[in-house]
């Protein structure tokens, strides 16, 4: 397991622990989002290299993380579009996962492409300048 994946898994674990301990008040913080960013890059690379096992692991991690992010924003007021972005990105990670499992790497690449666009669109609104 490379360092990047370890970082994301650690971030997810920390997020899960913090969520359990603190409940709905837990923030989606910079560390978690940096982990997501790195996993998206890893997924993109693994799809390009047609490494189905590594790519599927990345896609699963993103599905799980975006489900948590959706849930996180769902508990906050006035964040309907953030919930929408997270939901859409989770769907795209799921589409990528399905395509990877079918070994259709062109379709997986397109899903990842849309996923990174979705990340960027969300950042336009939510990443603080």
């Amino acid at each position, binding site marked *: 397991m490379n360092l990047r994946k370890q970082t994301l898994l650690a971030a997810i674990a920390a997020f899960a622990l913090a969520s359990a301990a603190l409940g709905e008040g837990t923030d989606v913080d910079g560390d978690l989002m940096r982990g997501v960013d790195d996993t998206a890059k890893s997924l*993109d690379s693994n799809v390009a290299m047609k490494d189905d096992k590594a790519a599927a692991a990345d896609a699963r991690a993103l599905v799980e993380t975006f489900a948590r992010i959706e849930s996180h924003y769902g508990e906050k007021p006035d964040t309907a579009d953030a919930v929408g972005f997270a939901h859409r990105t989770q769907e795209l990670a799921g589409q990528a996962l399905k395509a990877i499992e079918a070994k259709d790497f062109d379709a997986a690449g397109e899903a990842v492409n849309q996923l*990174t666009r979705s990340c*960027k669109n969300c950042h336009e609104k939510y990443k603080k300048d």
Partner: protein
Amino acid sequence: MSHHHHSRRGFLGHGLGLGGAAALGSLGLQLNVASAAELEDPQAPRQPHFPAKAKSVIWLHMAGAPSTLDLFDYKPELIKLAGKPLPDSFAKNLKTATDGGVGNLLATKRTWKQYGETGAWVSDFLPNLARQVDDIAFLKGCKTEGATHVISSLKLHTAGLVPGRPALGSWVQYALGSANPDLPAFVVLPTGVGAAGGGRGAVIWSSGFLPAAYQGTAFRKGDSPILHLARPEGVIDTEQRNTLDLIASLNEHGAITRSGDTELSARAKSYELAYRMEKSAPEAVDLTKETAATRELYGIGTKETDEYGTALLRARRLVERNVRFIHVISGAPDASVDSWDAHNNLEKNHGVMSKSVDKPIAGLLADLKARGLLETTLVVWTSEFGRTPYGQSGNGRDHNPWGYTSWLAGGGIKPGSYGSTDDIGLRAQTGIVDTYDLQATILHQLGLDNRKVTFQYQGRQERPTTVFGDVIKEIVA
């Protein structure tokens, strides 16, 4: 000698192809546009993914960050609100770090007019360029990340926020090879005095994790553009040629038992390229062959514009010699200012800087057009970021990564205006273009799909624009 010559050519021409490819494979290189056998000769021309609109790029990097609010982005609302604090409606979630604190809104002091059929607004800082607007596509909704010159300049040139990634010119050279075996495909023309403003050094034309052969070659001022290129005094041509023939013969012999040694092959090729460049590089920058009218067009011979104009005329000559990527970095023409970095006294700063680039850039565009070269030459004008609508130090502006203008001309680009900032020019609002999108568009005009140019590094498939980058289709002709 002819035997050696023939033998050397055979070696250089056919080289270590398959063995080299195998070695590259073992190093983990995954090649796309460049096949492994072609990468073994970094200079070998390679086919694009689809027909290219542009053959060459001239990238005009305005180091230090000009205020496009005082050049291209006319904002009447900012003039109305001048002297007032930055309204909360514009400043929401804005993280500022302005030294001395965020000043009140600062109106441009320039006179503005619309020019040409496209009606582009240009201030009187750029009277010559204003006459060329009908060839320009203005990107008025540019944005980036970071608020320091070095970080944002790295992102602009390498798509990374830390050093280590290749410059766009390196990716282009890697993907397409060289269209002229006697010159580097990626040439850098730094201008000006000092290195103030940050983000100007070799790190922005580095080949990063790509092989070193793809780094930009910085040309010096003067007759001998490359350091140590000239033959040493006391060595005649025949003597040098015989020495190189002997070295090539020994390398050829050594290669028989080292068929996978790409370094050996690259070294052998570099001797020959350097030898050829002894003649080709000085000739490429020899402006004595240009007419007086052409030299005047670029502002050569006038103190304020001489150096930058010389660089741009060199750039045109390099385009004529099929150099693929020419990176011209602006600098202060004299010691009165540092760069475009006008934290204070913007009027004086931009007066000096604008004057140094205005006539040369207008001259370049006109000259390329007159020679039929603009159609296939993509000219890019941009910087690491723009400057804020609020003031700093009373009469300057701070860094603004949130909204600024860049422009492109020629190379299959449709003139006009695309995107916008908000009413005071603080943030990109419509037609938002990130640096990744600009890079993807430049690659597209060269016939390259930014997602298909790849290089494997540290187990990851890397691309010129990372995982981002969409072609700005609205400006592609």
